[in-house]
């Protein structure tokens, strides 16, 4: 036991205070969504049920559209991370190890830039993208691909550092593997945990992103929630809870993936 650790009572108090700080808004939101419809009393699930009421379909359509867009964006962003960012990181590790510091700095940069700064830079780029690739909802994934770099970098780099990429690649080359085989059959399988974690974190970031989507006038889950919130505060709260639950499940999955990985090292 760490001799510097505070006594048990202090720890319990700290735990309680922190717990309450987190729990109060959460519980309040849950209670809010359980508010009965006008005329009712006590707590009811009517507003949850109303979500699927065909009568409300028109009112909630932006949310469903936004959710669809966000899921599409999450998918494209993950593709960018796995298909573009990962091979680049492997290339840096194998062929340009001296670039690693520079690369790390660039990859971590987006976390220190306010979204509004990013948008100012992105606006002219999106004018161009709009002309060449159209203004489909998925194009926002280019911006999100940059936004998730710091998170993806951390988890993938940890996996790369855990194996001797150079020796494994050289061994595969001497055994007759071309570069495609080296990447797909040797390196990627050994980065599986890092890739999975990077993908899940990217999904979580994309589903929670509001500022860039809003400033670029895109319809995503978060922007739709704001719109709907102006007419119906309850439904926004319900979707917020659902998004929270989804993110919670994602984090659980990430945690489990990490633990399975750790377990494999000690048979």
């Amino acid at each position: 036991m760490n001799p510097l650790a505070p006594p048990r009572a202090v720890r319990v108090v700290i735990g309680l205070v922190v717990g309450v700080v987190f729990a109060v808004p959460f519980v309040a939101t849950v209670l809010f969504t359980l508010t009965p419809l006008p005329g009712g009393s006590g707590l009811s699930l009517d507003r949850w049920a109303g979500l699927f009421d065909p009568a409300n379909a028109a009112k909630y359509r932006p949310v469903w559209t936004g959710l669809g867009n966000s899921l599409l964006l999450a998918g494209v962003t993950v593709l960018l991370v796995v298909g573009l960012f990962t091979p680049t990181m492997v290339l840096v590790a194998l062929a340009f190890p001296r670039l690693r510091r520079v690369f790390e700095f660039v990859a971590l940069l987006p976390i220190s830039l306010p979204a509004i700064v990013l948008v100012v830079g992105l606006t002219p780029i999106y004018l161009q993208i709009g002309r060449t690739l159209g203004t489909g909802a998925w194009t926002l994934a280019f911006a999100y691909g940059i936004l998730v770099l710091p998170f993806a970098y951390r988890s993938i780099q940890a996996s790369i550092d855990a194996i001797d990429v150079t020796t494994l690649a050289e061994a595969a080359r001497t055994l007759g593997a071309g570069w495609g085989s080296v990447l797909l059959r040797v390196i990627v399988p050994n980065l599986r945990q890092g890739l999975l974690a990077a993908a899940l974190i990217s999904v979580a970031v994309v589903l929670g992103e509001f500022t860039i989507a809003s400033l670029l006038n895109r319809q995503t889950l978060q922007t739709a929630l704001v719109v709907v919130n102006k007419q119906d505060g309850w439904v926004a709260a319900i979707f917020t809870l659902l998004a929270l639950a989804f993110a919670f499940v994602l984090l659980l999955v990430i945690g489990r993936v990490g633990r399975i990985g750790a377990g494999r090292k000690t048979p």
Partner: protein
Amino acid sequence: MTAADTPIRALPDAAASTLATGTRAGVELRGVVKEYGSTRVLHGVDLDVAPGEFVSLLGPSGCGKTTALRVLAGLEPADGGEVRIGGRDVSRVPTNKRDIGMVFQSYSLFPHLRVLDNTAFGLRRRGVGATEARRRAGDALDLVGLGHLGDRYAHQLSGGQQQRVALARALVTEPRVLLLDEPLSALDAKVRVQLRDEIRRIQLRLGTTTVFVTHDQEEALAVSDRVAVMGAGRILQVGSPEDLYSRPAGAEVAAFVGASSVVPGIVSAGTVSVWGQRLPLLAPAPDGPCEVFVRPENVRVVAPGDSGVDAVVESSTFLGSMRRSMLRVDDGTGVHVQHPAEVRLTPGDRVRIRVDAVPALTRPVTSSSAPAGG
């Protein structure tokens, strides 16, 4: 290491029958030059390896031996010269098309594959079907005595076992050349000797042309048909282990191969005089004072009245069948002496020693005359 090394098992006949012996090819390096930035690490290396031959590249760390091997494998491009395998210039051929097998110094098994699939990897890349590849991989594992560990992962094996699997994986494709880059240096002494002898046994059995890089002269002398001693990016001498030991081409080779003491001598009339004993010269040397390389086994402890020189025993080490003692001659020169275990020398004893009249190598006098080698 998670498991003890398994003892070498008897070689099943089936294993030998599936690994063909007809794939041997010669290897030639012609004036290979390699530079890192402005530093030249290989100064025109020439080396011929005959088909089926086992040649070691021996030298201290930083002498360029690993770089030479990596150029041969195509893992580093050469900045000049030519690499030939089986008579064909492969300088522009990428590593994966050179038909080589290689075992690395660091453990290189693929962590996500079981031992059997690791071993089958090269066959699969050559388009061999899964069933056939696994069968031949199993045979190759039998060859290194690990056929029963096929469903393990690399992290469940000891270091020695991992290197044996790496050897099986490199040999299963019946490569034209086997390249070994200090494969034993991460292993402990006992496993190292065991695996070293096993590599040689398998190599003789399959007849695969082999280039073996090591900094351990004992290792090189023990297993090689020929040894190429390297120093500072050049090949200093190529010869059989016996040649290198008894007829080193120069002082650098003499100092690196085997243990030698360096003692003062005087050259005159084509011989060199050491402690009153005249020795023939291995290589011509100018008359006058010089330094002479003397092997421990060529120094004798003699009776006090005999010709020779007096020395004080500093230490004595029991090596089983014999003893090796460190003596200091009255002029300050340190000398290693190898003698029968029954001759007990105690530190502080004064003894008389003499050197055998075997051909000796000399070098000009340098500032320090400490014993070289160990």
